[in-house]
């Protein structure tokens, strides 16, 4: 029982008032009774004002443990709304999948062309049984994650270099803009000739697709750093390195976390695009192969897995962002 809460208990005891105290979910609840009126929480309207006061004051000192009745209701409402959104979301997905299955079963669609959820499921099961499923997932995941990390690390380093020297920045700016505008798939044939048809080519493609945006976003974050704060550091005699480490990098952290989210999406585009061009293995390969031999079940199954993986990777980055931003304060 919190120290100051004892005051309220003392008062209740002195005045022979029924008083019950409990703690649940880090929130203190209490109940007291005066002349047949039962008061819960501290929003007791009738009853004994002094006790209400005492308890109210007590609880106010421990805001973390308590909230008013209105606030409680407000929080409940928010929780309920959140639940509704989740429920509707799930219902839409289930409904669409169900409708798809039904149409395929009844014959509205030709399942040979549209596939169906049950056929997708059995395809995935077959792939898993044959042992190739995790092989293909592994290859694509490795390419994507490797490409993503290389692009982010290299992109960040290049952004730092460009930030350090304004002249270099001015020189390279148009190149970056053009590279950003260029559809990277146009470089496909070159990449195959330079890098062969193995996964290095695909990782290279992944890096190529995502690195430019990394450089541009990170650099934009660096350049947007408050000029007054820079002046402050300069007045303390900070050199460029201190400026970078103490100010520019932490100040642009939110921009960097945003960049990560964009880069995840682009890395998937890069790796799948790479696999389309030089397929030997991976989910992109399964999709292309399935299309060529008209196995739409395979195409759908691979696409479905891709959805899960891309969503999962995005979620991981989003969670990391949340943690980092929260710790930053």
């Amino acid at each position, binding site marked *: 029982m919190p120290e100051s809460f004892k005051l309220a208990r003392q008062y209740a005891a002195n005045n022979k008032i029924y008083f019950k105290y409990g703690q649940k979910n880090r929130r203190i609840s209490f109940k007291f009774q005066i002349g047949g009126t039962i008061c819960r929480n501290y929003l007791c309207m009738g009853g004994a004002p002094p006790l209400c006061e005492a308890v109210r004051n007590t609880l106010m000192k421990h805001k973390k443990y308590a909230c008013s009745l209105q606030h409680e209701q407000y929080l409940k409402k928010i929780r309920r709304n959140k639940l509704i959104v989740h429920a509707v979301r799930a219902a839409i997905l289930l409904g669409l999948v169900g409708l798809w299955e039904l149409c395929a079963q009844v014959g509205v669609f030709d399942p040979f062309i549209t596939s169906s959820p049950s056929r997708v499921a059995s395809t995935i099961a077959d792939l898993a049984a044959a042992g190739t499923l995790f092989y293909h997932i592994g290859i694509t995941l490795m390419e994507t994650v490797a490409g993503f990390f290389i692009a982010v690390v290299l992109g960040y380093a290049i952004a730092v270099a460009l930030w350090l020297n304004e002249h270099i920045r001015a020189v390279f700016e148009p190149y970056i803009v053009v590279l950003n505008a260029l559809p990277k798939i146009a470089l496909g044939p070159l990449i195959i000739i330079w890098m062969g048809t193995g996964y290095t080519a695909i990782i290279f493609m992944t890096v190529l697709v995502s690195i430019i945006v990394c450089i541009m976003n990170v650099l934009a974050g660096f350049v947007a750093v*408050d000029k*007054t*704060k820079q*002046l*402050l*550091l*300069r*007045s*303390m*005699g*900070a050199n460029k390195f*201190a400026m970078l480490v*103490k*100010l520019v990098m*932490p*100040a642009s*952290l939110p921009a960097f976390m945003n960049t990560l989210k964009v880069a995840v999406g682009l890395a998937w585009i890069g790796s799948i695009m790479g696999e389309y061009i030089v397929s030997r293995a991976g989910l992109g390969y399964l999709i292309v192969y399935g299309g060529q031999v008209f196995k739409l079940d395979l195409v759908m199954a691979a696409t479905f897995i891709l959805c899960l993986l891309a969503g999962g990777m995005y979620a991981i980055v989003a969670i990391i962002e949340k943690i980092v931003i929260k710790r*930053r*304060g």
Partner: protein
Amino acid sequence: MSLKFTDVSYTYHTVSGETDAVSGLTFSVDEGQFVAVIGPSGCGKSTILSLAAGLISPTRGRIERGGGQFGYMLQTDALFEWRTVEQNIFLPLEIKKKNTPEMRKNAVELAKKYGLEDFLKKSPAQLSGGMRQRVALIRTLAAQPQTLLLDEPFSALDYQTRLAVCDDVHDIIKSEKKTALLVTHDISEAIALSDKVVVLSARPARVVGEHIIDFGGGSPKKRRESSRFAAVFEVLRQELGI
């Protein structure tokens, strides 16, 4: 002599043209003196502080800086919102490689002395404007500079807080025995705080007049209540041409 400007001029150059911000400026700040510089908006006051801090070099003329370090308190508090109040106060120690336990302890003592004890672990976002200003001042003092350059340190505050923080700052600076150069466009603030007021012309800044202020026993409150306050105010107002 802590700081001495002799015939100093400064011109900003940008692609769109050049701006004379300061022209032929001569004045000095003695050791332990509190000097206020007043002048109309945009006349070049911040430029003078940047010159004094050595962030820019004069186009013409000479600036002599006496011994001791300078601490520059900018026009805005510029607190780093990702650092706690305490970490903000330690910033100059980290930059100046003075991040020793004694220096940190000193800085914390200072913060405690001036009412920031309960806020050291808080984020700047949780502070009121007046407290942020106080944090900015303690941060300026943390590296124990001998001379303080203060750029309208109270401009972001409402009038009441301003009076209170103004008294605080005067207290802190006098009790820590610092030399201070304060820039403001508020005449009464200048009179209340300083030992000497330097009045500047409109841009480019020149010295129009210098006034030693020695009534009221050196406390801002007593000064404001003094019968001589109004007379000095009037003289400065006329020199500023408002």
